[in-house]
């Protein structure tokens, strides 16, 4: 499963070497966009695990929540590094200015930074160490996913179809999580 999830990255690497096509006229932009899309997709996949497990009975998905989360963090790191190092090559001093002055970068960086403690505390040791607080900390993934959707929406020039699609999926996942929480009081069976 992890191998399959790394295919997009392998695809980028292959195209960088001229295999199976190329990276287009603006390679840095292509890599930035691809890594960004897969960050968002794996974030949404992470949020989909529990609803699918509890509402649709896909118990076998349980172990993949952490996998998807770490993949989201990996792609997110590549996305951020591509921007901060490659895109800003020779002008790294503008990084802080970008983060402060461009709302889509502000919200994107914030979302990424939130994933850092989540990645660090993803191990069983940390789950044990933090106990109840682990669950509270990892609710940040909702905020990170929302930040990712806003980041996407605010960088697109005019065609907001794709960002709205992802926002719609996120809204549905929020609703599904709400359903999971409310199920006892709604009188639905386990």
């Amino acid at each position, binding site marked *: 499963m992890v191998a399959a999830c790394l295919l997009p990255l392998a695809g980028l690497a292959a195209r960088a070497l001229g295999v199976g096509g190329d990276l287009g006229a*603006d390679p840095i932009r292509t890599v930035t966009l691809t890594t960004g899309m897969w960050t968002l997709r794996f974030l949404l996949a992470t949020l989909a695990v529990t609803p699918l497990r509890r509402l649709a009975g896909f118990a076998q998905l349980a172990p993949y929540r952490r996998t998807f989360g770490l993949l989201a963090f990996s792609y997110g790191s590549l996305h951020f590094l591509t921007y901060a190092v490659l*895109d800003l090559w020779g002008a790294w001093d*503008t990084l802080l200015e970008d983060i402060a002055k461009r709302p889509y970068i502000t919200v994107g960086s914030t979302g990424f930074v939130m994933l850092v403690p989540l990645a660090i505390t993803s191990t069983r040791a940390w789950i044990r160490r933090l106990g109840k607080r682990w669950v509270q900390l990892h609710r940040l993934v909702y905020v990170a996913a929302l930040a990712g959707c806003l980041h996407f929406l605010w960088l697109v020039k005019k065609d907001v179809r794709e960002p709205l699609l992802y926002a719609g999926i996120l809204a549905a996942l929020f609703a599904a999580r709400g359903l999971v929480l409310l199920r006892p009081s709604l009188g639905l069976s386990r």
Partner: protein
Amino acid sequence: MLIRRNRHAESPEREVTDPGLYLRRREFVTGAGAALVLAACGPADDPMAEAKAEATTGAGVETTPFEKATHYNNYYEFGTDKEDPSENAGQLVTRPWSVAIEGEVAKPGTIDLEDLIKPSAVEERIYRMRCVEAWSMVIPWRGVPLKDVLARLEPTSRARYVAFTTLLRPEQMPGQRRRVLEWPYREGLRMDEAMNTLPLLVTGMYGRDLPNQNGAPLRLVVPWKYGFKGIKSIVSIRLTETQPETAWNVAAPDEYGFYANVNPEVDHPRWSQKRERRIGEFSKRPTLMFNGYGDQVAALYAGMDLQKNF
């Protein structure tokens, strides 16, 4: 129909000059002199100085590879992804083509594209093109000066602006089936901007006819403004008294203005305009005021607040 080719009169393919070299032949002339001048100047490590020098002398200018110029396009009539126009524009039928001449002119009417262009001397000009998205290319255009064509149309004394309109044909332009922008695409210039020597009515690039994805068969190029002012597939030229509406300004008035002059000091509300990615280069380069054409056009805006009139 039997089309005869006189193969004896043709040179073999292998003897044809590499298009890249052909297009840079004038650069070799200017580059030789400019290189001497630059060698006498200060250190070459200042990107802004390099950009300015390149803009003034033409030295070191590399035209963007044809493949990239024809496969990385913003032409929303064919889709909003950069690869969409090259994938979808093939279906556009560009002949016959006529242009409606309307408004404050001596003789309004409709004119065939050939008749519109024929009386002018066709020129080849290598211009920088800067997109509002902060990337740029260097393109060898082939066309006629807009001012020559406008002069022939005999504008009346009430003509203060020139307005252009793109073809509206959703059956061949699939992007027009959605209202991502108001169709047909519209653009315009102030009369004095249009009568400047720089704007070109373009029919070709890289020594051949315009590919469909680049705005065939007739487009505008205004090199000191953001690329979206370069309206494509023109079907109407109207001279007006009042400032015309333009597609991007209607779509997002706080982000895209009528003037749209390239200006590193006026950021887009959502991103900076200080730097740009020259397609094909690794590092971004500083953006130049008026895209480096200030010598020819800055006077048009003397006394204007370019923050307000963006």
